[in-house]
């Protein structure tokens, strides 16, 4: 595995000034984790608490608005966006456990709400942190790996990679795990084919993409893959299950918690 691309790591860190470690954070759970994969949300909370933070989960939060936004229904998405902003009133970081929702909240809200009170929107966007970014750049966590030696692959969603640089922070976290060897699959930066409504509207193209992604992941000798994005994982895991493969993806929050707690797989 090639060394961390320092140039981009630098570019990344120079792009954003990180605050000191706070006492409290909000968790943005995302609608997918809320509905389908809640354990990863609980695991993220536990990891953050183990770092000494108090985690607040506003019950009024729902979806970041991406599905409507990506379908061209911007007005509908905008209403939802304003609603989310209201749910997180305290001036503390908002940690998002999915890279693509993070990109939506951090970058697209600015575009979509440019006619609203700019300051309030900008301040909200500035408080958004993707989960691995937050652990790495704000908390600067030190992880103690308690698990058995194993090889894993890392899949980073495209939004996370291109809007949030998660391929750097996610990798940096996994590299802290002494017993874990990160293996790189072919076409690592290529999209898995999820793309929200794209997977339904153009199911055959999306299907061809996820089949390739699965092929490249299976071609490694990793025992699982790890990701910070439930959209991709729902897609890739769904294809793996369809193909009756045992190989699966695990959310990075759950994986990190498990490794540092020493739980078995």
């Amino acid at each position, binding site marked *: 595995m090639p060394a961390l691309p320092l*140039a*981009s790591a630098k*570019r990344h860190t120079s792009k954003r000034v990180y605050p000191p470690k706070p006492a409290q954070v909000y968790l943005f*759970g995302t*609608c997918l*984790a*809320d*509905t*389908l*994969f*809640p*354990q990863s*949300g*609980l695991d993220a*909370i536990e990891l953050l608490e183990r770092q000494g933070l108090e985690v607040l*989960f506003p*019950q*009024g939060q*729902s979806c970041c608005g991406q599905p*409507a*936004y*990506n*379908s*061209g*229904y*911007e007005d*509908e*998405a905008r*209403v*939802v966006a304003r*609603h989310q902003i209201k749910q997180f009133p305290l001036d503390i970081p908002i940690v998002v456990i999915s890279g693509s929702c993070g990109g939506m909240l951090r970058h697209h809200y600015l575009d979509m709400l440019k006619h609203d009170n700019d300051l309030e929107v900008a301040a909200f966007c500035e408080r958004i942190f993707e989960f691995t970014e937050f652990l790495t750049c704000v908390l600067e966590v030190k992880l103690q790996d308690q698990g058995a030696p194993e090889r894993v692959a890392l899949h980073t969603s*495209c*939004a996370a990679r*291109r*809007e949030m640089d998660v391929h750097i922070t996610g990798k940096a976290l996994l590299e802290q795990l002494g017993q874990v060897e990160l293996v790189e699959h072919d076409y690592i*930066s*290529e*999209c898995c*084919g*999820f*793309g*929200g409504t*794209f*997977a*339904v*509207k*153009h*199911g*055959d*193209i999306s*299907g*061809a*993409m*996820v*089949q*390739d992604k699965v092929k490249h992941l299976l071609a490694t000798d990793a025992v699982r893959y790890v990701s910070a994005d439930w959209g991709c994982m729902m897609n890739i895991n*769904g*294809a793996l*299950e*369809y193909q009756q493969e045992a190989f699966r993806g695990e959310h990075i929050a759950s994986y990190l918690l498990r490794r540092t707690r020493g739980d078995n797989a």
Partner: protein
Amino acid sequence: MNTRANTIATDGSKYEASARQFRGNVARDLANPQLRENFRGAMDYLTDKRRQAFPSEDELETLRRKCQLIKQRCLLKLPELLEQLESKLEQNGIQVHWAETTAEANTIIAELIQRKNGTKVVKGKSMVSEETALNDHLQAQGIECLETDMGEYIVQMAGEHPSHIIMPAIHQNKSQVADLFAHNIPGFDYTTDVDTLIRTGRQALRDKFCHADVGVTGVNFAVAETGTLCLVENEGNGRMVSTVPEMHIAITGIEKVVELLDDVPPLLSLLTRSATGQIISTYFNMITHPRREGEKDGPKEVHLVLLDNGRSQAFADEELRQTLQCIRCGACMNHCPVYTRIGGHAYGTVYPGPIGKIVSPHMLGLEATKDLPTASSLCGACGEVCPVKIPIPKILLRLRKESVKAKGEPLVVKGQGCNRKPLEAGIWKLWSRLNTSPVIYAIAMWLASRGRWLTPAKAGAWTRVRTLPKPARRPLRELVKQREQRREGQ
């Protein structure tokens, strides 16, 4: 004019029908393993070449920013630069013609050729002439119009269209080309040796250059300051067709004008490096005059046709205007996971891939191209590599928005609102209600988790290659609440 007598249009409108077939084309081409292998191989090659051509990320970023700003400046001054270009070119002896539509451009070109009693035309690579379906039009007028770029030559022989804007025959491998030559070139000794194949093409075409009446080319940059037409190429056919015949006709889109000669070197450097990973093409050809008194070769007449074909519509909107920054390098398609899977023909448009998705709606209308903006996972690979930093994903989103716009909104893109369905619009309204009302949302979550056994096994396209996950037994919000209550109880 008799062109409308045929059932097939001999202008750009013929692509309206093929763009409408997008979904069928996709199904057809996804099912062709040879085609998918050809594209994957070609894209791997091109992306790798590009990567090697930009060893320094900082240099690349500075150059991209520079070229983005150059193109934006030139677009901001577009009308005045076009007028300056025209007057400079005419001072230099090059005649300028304006065409709003593809049919107009074809008529202008056909008349120029007929005025010379020309019957034989050789063409250098020009995507704009593909846009106008010039070959069809000239053939209908009894004028032979032969493609001379090796890739285009192959494609024309096969009765196809280019599947890539830089490498037109990328969808074929060498044995397919060999088969094609065997069927079409008398005396061709079957071989898959690429050198021999190229030599065969060279031999066939040399005679054509020699005897052609008119040469047609595209233009990569038209310099307003000096009245110069710049052509980028490797094969030398562009030089041939702009040097040997007595008349040279260049055709280009109005967005290709640049203000200064100084703007050319950075754009050229980014163009060739992004396209094929070459630090420069074999030939960079700058044409400023027709043959002058005393000169012994070169065309006696040079013409430039400036084509609009929907570009002014893109121009009218600040966000969509960025589409016109494009320098046609092809990098966006080379890096596109969708293009790599479905290939260039599936799009049914002249320009395939990401740039095709954002430019074709202006040429053909959004109605004919309504499946293109949605056929993207918005992965962002195209925007990341585009040398002039066109935010392609954002423009795709914008076109999605235009395509579901309600009736009665001001016209931005011809055919807007074409994807608006009352049911879908209603669903998003409901969705927005659901996501802004905590009570309804919580009830919905409760219902979903308790009704998880109702999850269907099949859900349209999704479950054709995947399983569908069931809602969790309890949603995260409830689990978090329970957890908090447990703690308080402790």
